[in-house]
């Protein structure tokens, strides 16, 4: 069972590499396929709360290592407030929140309705990006929500969502390979169900 979790971590690292080859679609408001968040969201429904949190930590950590910008530098008298930006590690919290969101539909997933999870991964990506943007707005100031922004988030969510069946297929293969039973335990005690893939 532990090997399945290790394989998920390996899959996240592979997703980080694949992410480098994902271009921005200029004609679609610079939307792009977010491979790392998608792998995390799809994986989140196949594991329990504890491993999900660990995976959220790994994904958020790697995501921020790639994206967070350094300090502005230069003379602070000239560049006033230039260093106000999100801190390294904020993505970990966002990933965990989205992980809990995905775990909310885990009972449907264990019934074999993986397509509901696939659709919800698109919704989760939309929420993730919107919350991330709001977070940046809150830190930097100036509330700006444009049509282009909403279209960018929507197209990114849609493009990413179309790739989710492929990720679920890979997860099922991994589960079978490592004899992992996808089970629902949730946060409450007493309720258990199992499904074999």
């Amino acid at each position, binding site marked *: 069972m532990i090997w399945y979790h290790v394989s998920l971590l390996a899959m996240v690292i592979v997703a980080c590499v694949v992410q480098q080859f994902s271009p921005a679609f200029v004609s679609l408001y610079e939307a*792009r396929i977010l491979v790392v968040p998608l792998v995390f969201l799809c994986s989140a429904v196949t594991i329990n*709360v504890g491993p999900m949190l660990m995976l959220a*930590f790994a994904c958020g950590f790697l995501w921020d290592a790639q994206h967070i910008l*350094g300090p502005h530098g230069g003379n602070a008298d000239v*560049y006033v407030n230039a260093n106000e930006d999100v801190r390294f590690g904020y993505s*970990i919290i966002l990933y965990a929140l989205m992980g809990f969101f995905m775990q909310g539909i885990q009972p449907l997933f264990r019934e074999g309705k993986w397509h509901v999870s696939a659709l919800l991964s698109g919704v989760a990506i939309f929420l993730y990006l919107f919350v991330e943007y709001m977070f940046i707005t809150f830190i930097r100031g*100036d509330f700006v929500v*444009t049509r282009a922004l909403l279209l960018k988030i929507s197209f990114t969510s849609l493009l990413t969502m179309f790739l989710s069946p492929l990720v679920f297929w890979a997860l099922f293969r991994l589960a079978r390979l490592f004899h992992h039973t996808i089970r629902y335990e949730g946060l409450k005690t007493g309720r258990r169900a199992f499904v074999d893939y």
Partner: protein
Amino acid sequence: MKPLNLLALLLFLWGVIWVLTLSERSVRKIQQVYYAMISPFLKGGSELEVAARKFLEEVEHSEDLENRLKSIEMEFGKLRSIEGRLRELERENSELRNALEFEKRSSIEVIAARVIKRQPSTWWETAIINRGERAGIGPQIAVLAPGGLAGKIDTVDKDVASMILLTDERCQVSVQVAGTPEVGIVHGVRGHYGRKPELRLRHLSREAAIRPGMKVVTTGKGGIFPENILVGTVKSYIPGPVEGEAYVEPSVNFRDLGVVFVIAKEAEK
């Protein structure tokens, strides 16, 4: 909640607090390690992308190429004659400068680098170039491109570096509207996607005599960007109750950013 889940949650919270309280130096170190690990894939991906693009261009424009070659040959002849005239003017200009006793003249040494990846992030306008520490590139150094200022270096690894483009909100530059005493800070515009990029110039006088078409250049203040580098052209000016602001069209074509020049050394001659 199950004890194991509670333990996982506590561990997670501890991890989050640890990461959020990391020093800037530690964060940069982590990012350096990350880029060192990812750089072989970046280069591989870039080479693949370039090869595919070249092949497609060749297929699509093979007929055009012949016609273009002919017109280029004609243009080349013209340019050679112009070049001869320019060299003469350059010599004349140099003589005049000496005559006016320009004691100091700054010159900029640059390191040419190729953009190997554009926008690997959702909200930040960044690019990755194929030169790093080995080429003498460090963080917070200005980057130029054909046309003017392109941005500045953010993270540096041995053979690659990440740069923040001028079109990003976090890349702030101290600038002056040429021909006026108006100075301000220019930066990218948030929520501006899928259109031609524009810049926002803030902290201007509330009723500044700024007209569209005026050039915007760096002031050299702030310690990052050298002075008199072209940033863009004023598109519009909006007077405000306290201060005015202008929208600037960048002089660099960010859609076609292939080669950039990182400032290596600003030497005084």
